[in-house]
C-alpha cells in the first residue's frame, strides 16, 4: 500500500546508509520556514496567478508542496504532495512513512514505495491530462466571444523519507523531501464567424514549468531545517485576438485586426544551485 507507507520497521542501518538522502549538493538554499513562490498577472480582464508553496507539514514531521492556479479569475489547486514520518506508538515501533499525491483535488495513486539506501521512496505521476475552466464571455471589439479555456498538465512526484533513529528517541532525526515536476499550460480559444467578418481569441500560456523540491532535516527537539532546490518558469506566453474580413475578389480572409491580449516573457525562479540563465 504505497500511499500510506511501508509498515516494515526502519532498520538502524538507515543511520549509516541514509547519508545521501537529503544532503544533496543541489539543496543549498536553506531556511527554517516555508517558501512561497508566486506570480500574478491579468488575462482578458481577469486574474491570472500561480502560487507554489513548499513547507513542512502541519505536524512538522514531513514536507509538503502545493501548487495553486488562478486562471480567468477562478482558483484551482493543481497539485498537492507530501511525505511524512509517523512515529511508532511504542519504543519498539520505529514508525512508518506516509505519502500523498493529489492532482486537481483527486487522490492519485503513488505506488507502493521502495527502500533504497536507507530511504523510503515513493514515486507517483500521471499521464498528461486536462482541466476545463468555466466558459467566459469576452468582447473583442465588436464581437462577443465565448471563450473556452483550461489547463493541460503533467505531473510527477518523488517523495523520500530517511530516518536517522537513535535511542533515546530525542536524538533522532528524520530526513524528508518531496520533489514535484510539474508542467501546466493554459489555453484560451474563442471563435465566431459572421459571413464577412470572423473573430477569435487564441493562444497558450505556460502557467508553470519546471520542478521544485523541498527537503527537511527534522529533529525531535528543535525546529526543522529546510532546504530548497528548483527551477520554475511561470506565466509565460502570448494570447492574441483577431478579426478577419472576407475579400470576395481575392476569395480569402484578410486579417483586419490582430491585437495581443497578453504577452509576457514570464518569470523564472531558481533556487538551490539552479540557474535561470540560459546559454
Amino acid at each position, binding site marked *: *500500500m504505497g*500511499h*500510506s*507507507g511501508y*509498515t516494515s520497521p526502519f532498520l538502524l542501518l538507515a543511520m549509516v546508509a541514509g547519508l545521501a538522502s537529503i544532503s544533496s549538493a543541489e539543496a543549498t538554499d536553506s531556511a527554517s520556514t*516555508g517558501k512561497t513562490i508566486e506570480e500574478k498577472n491579468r488575462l482578458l480582464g481577469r486574474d491570472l496567478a500561480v502560487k507554489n508553496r513548499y*513547507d513542512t*507539514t*502541519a*505536524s512538522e514531521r514531513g514536507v509538503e508542496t502545493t501548487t495553486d492556479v488562478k486562471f480567468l479569475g477562478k*482558483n484551482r489547486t493543481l497539485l498537492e504532495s507530501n511525505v511524512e514520518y*509517523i512515529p511508532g506508538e511504542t519504543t519498539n515501533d520505529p514508525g512508518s512513512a*506516509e505519502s500523498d499525491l493529489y492532482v*486537481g*483535488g*483527486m*487522490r*492519485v*495513486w503513488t*505506488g507502493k514505495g521502495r527502500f533504497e539506501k536507507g530511504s523510503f521512496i515513493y514515486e507517483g*505521476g*500521471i*499521464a*498528461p*491530462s*486536462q*482541466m*476545463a475552466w468555466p466558459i467566459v*464571455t469576452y*468582447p473583442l*471589439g*465588436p*464581437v*462577443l466571444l*465565448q471563450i473556452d479555456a483550461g489547463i*493541460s*498538465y*503533467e505531473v510527477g512526484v518523488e517523495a523520500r523519507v530517511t530516518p536517522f533513529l537513535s535511542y533515546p528517541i530525542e536524538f533522532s532525526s528524520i530526513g524528508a523531501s518531496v520533489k514535484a515536476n510539474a*508542467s*501546466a*499550460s493554459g489555453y484560451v*480559444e474563442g*471563435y*465566431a*464567424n*459572421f*459571413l*464577412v*467578418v470572423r473573430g*477569435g481569441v487564441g493562444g*497558450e500560456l*505556460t502557467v508553470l*514549468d519546471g520542478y521544485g523540491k523541498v527537503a527537511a532535516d527534522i529533529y525531535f527537539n528543535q525546529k526543522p531545517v529546510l532546504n530548497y532546490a528548483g527551477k520554475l518558469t511561470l506565466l509565460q*506566453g502570448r494570447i492574441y485576438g483577431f478579426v478577419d*474580413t*472576407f*475579400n*470576395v475578389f481575392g*476569395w*480569402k480572409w484578410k486579417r483586419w485586426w490582430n491585437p495581443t491580449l497578453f504577452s509576457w516573457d514570464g518569470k523564472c525562479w531558481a533556487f538551490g544551485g539552479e540557474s535561470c540563465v540560459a546559454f
Partner: protein
Amino acid sequence: MRRLLIVSAVTASAALALTAYQLAPPSSPFVIPSENRVFADRTPNSAEELIEEATLFRTTYEFKRKIEATLSGKTLTNVSYEGTLFVDWKATSDLGKSAVLSFQLKQVPDQKAKMKIRLDRDHRLVSVKIPEGLSQADLDAISILKDLVSILAYRHGEDSTGKYRFTEKETQDVSSKETVWTKQKIAYESKALSMIRFLKSHHETRTSFGTQTPVYFRGREETQLGATKDSLFTVSEYTLRKKGHEETALDHAQDSTIWKESKLELDSSENIFARVDWKEIETALPLTGTLRGPERLQFFRKTVKALKTDPSKTKALRDWISRHRGNAKMASFGIGALATHGTPEAQKELLDLFSEFGKTRQTKSLQHTILGSFTTTEAKLIPETRTFLSELAGQKETDLDLAMNATLAMGSAMKKEPTAADEQRLGELAATAQDREEKLAYLDAIGNSGSANLISVVEDHLRSPDATIREKATFALRWMESEQATGLIVRSFEDPDVRVKSAAVKAVSYQKDFSAYQSMLATCVQKPASEKIGDLCKSVAQAQHEAE
C-alpha cells in the same frame, strides 16, 4: 425511354399517394399566405402537373449581392458579387423535389461550387449535401450557395436552425418603428446572453416557382452583432432574378460526385481552432519521447483535438501506444490523450490496452498509468469502464495495488456521475478493510467521490484512535456538501492532533459555501493552534474573500 420510365414510375407512385396526400401546413406563428411563398402551392391537382414536375428541368437565375459592413460608422468592407445560378430539378417519389445547384461567379470565374438539396412536398428544406473533399476556398464558396438556397427554400417562419426569421410584413423603410423596436429588443437580449444573430428580410415582390412568369426577388438583410458601442453592422442587398426555366437533358444520376450530408448553416468556415489534421499528429508522435514541458503539452492538446476532429483515429492511437509500450514516456502520452478525449470508443481502447499490458511484468506500470488517467480525466466513464473498475477494486487478493488504484478511479468516476450501485459497492468494500492501509485507501476513494451518501463510513473513522485515519477521514469530507459534512469538518477542527486540524482547514478550501465556516476560520486566525495552522487559515479566508 428514360423519360417514359420516369413518367411511369412517378405516375404509379402518384396514383398511390394521391389518395392519401394532404397538404398539411405546419403550425407556425408566422402564417404566410400561399401567394407570398416563393414556391407555388405544391398540391398536385392532376397527373399532368405531376408529369411536368417529373421532367428534368433547369431554372437559371441571375444573382447579385452587395455587402457593406461598418464598424463604429466606418466602412469595414464594401463588396458586391454577381453571377449565375443553375438549379437542376427533378421530382422525388415522395412528391418532393431534389436539385443540384451550381453557380458561376463573375468576379471569380474559377471559383465554382455545387450543392444538392432536397425539398419535401411542402417545399421545405429536408437535406443539404455538399461534395466530399472540398478545400477551404470551396467551402467558402458554398456559403454563397447556402445563402441562395435559404432564399429559395422559403419557410413559413423559422427554419430548423432557427437562424432565419422571415416575417410577413413588407417594409420598405428599414428605419421604421417596427424595425427599430426589433433591433432594440435583440440588442437587449444580446446584453443578457451570449452573442446573437438577427436577420430580417423584406420581400417586395411575390414570387412563384414552377411557372413561366418572370420572377423578380429582392431582399435586404441587416445584421447587428453584439451590443457594445462599437457594434458591427452589416447590410446586404441581394437580388435573385429568374432567367429561364426549361427542360434539360442533364441527369444528375450520372454524376460521380461523392456527396456528404451538411447542415444548412450561415457559416461554412469551420472554427479554425477546432480542427487538427491527424496527419500532423502522426508525423510528430515519434517525437513525444523527446518533447518536454510546454511543447509536450501543446502537442498533447493538438492530439486530443485531432481525435475529436477524426474519432476514427482512436484505434490508430491505441495501436501506436501498444507498439511503444517499452517507452513509458511515449505510452503515457498516448494514454493521457485517449483518456482526455474520453469517448466511449477511447475508453474501450484503454480497457483493451489494460488487459494487453497485464500479460507482462514490464508493462505493469502502464496499467497503473491507465487507472490514473481514469482518475484524472474529466470525461464521464461509460458503464463498461465503471464495471471494470468495480470488479478490479474487489480483486485485492490477486493484486492489491491495482485494486487500490482502481478504487481511487471508482471514486473519481462517482464524483462526475454518482450511481447508487457504485456508492453501495464502495461502501461494501470499505467495510472489508482489514488493515490501516486499506482503510486509508478507501477513505481516499470516498474523498474522491464526494458522495455524501457515504458520510457514515467517514464519520466512523473520525472516531478512530489513529490520528492518520482521522486526518484522512476529515479530508475525505472536502467535496461533500451537506449540513452533516459541515458539522463534521468543524468538529474535526477541534481535534487535538494538528494534522487533523490542518486537514479540516484544507477541506474547507474545497467547499463551495464558505459561510458555515466563517466562525471556524476567524477563531483559527485569531488563536491558531500553531503558526502553520494560522497561516493556512489566513490563506483559505483570503481565497474565500477573493472568490466573493
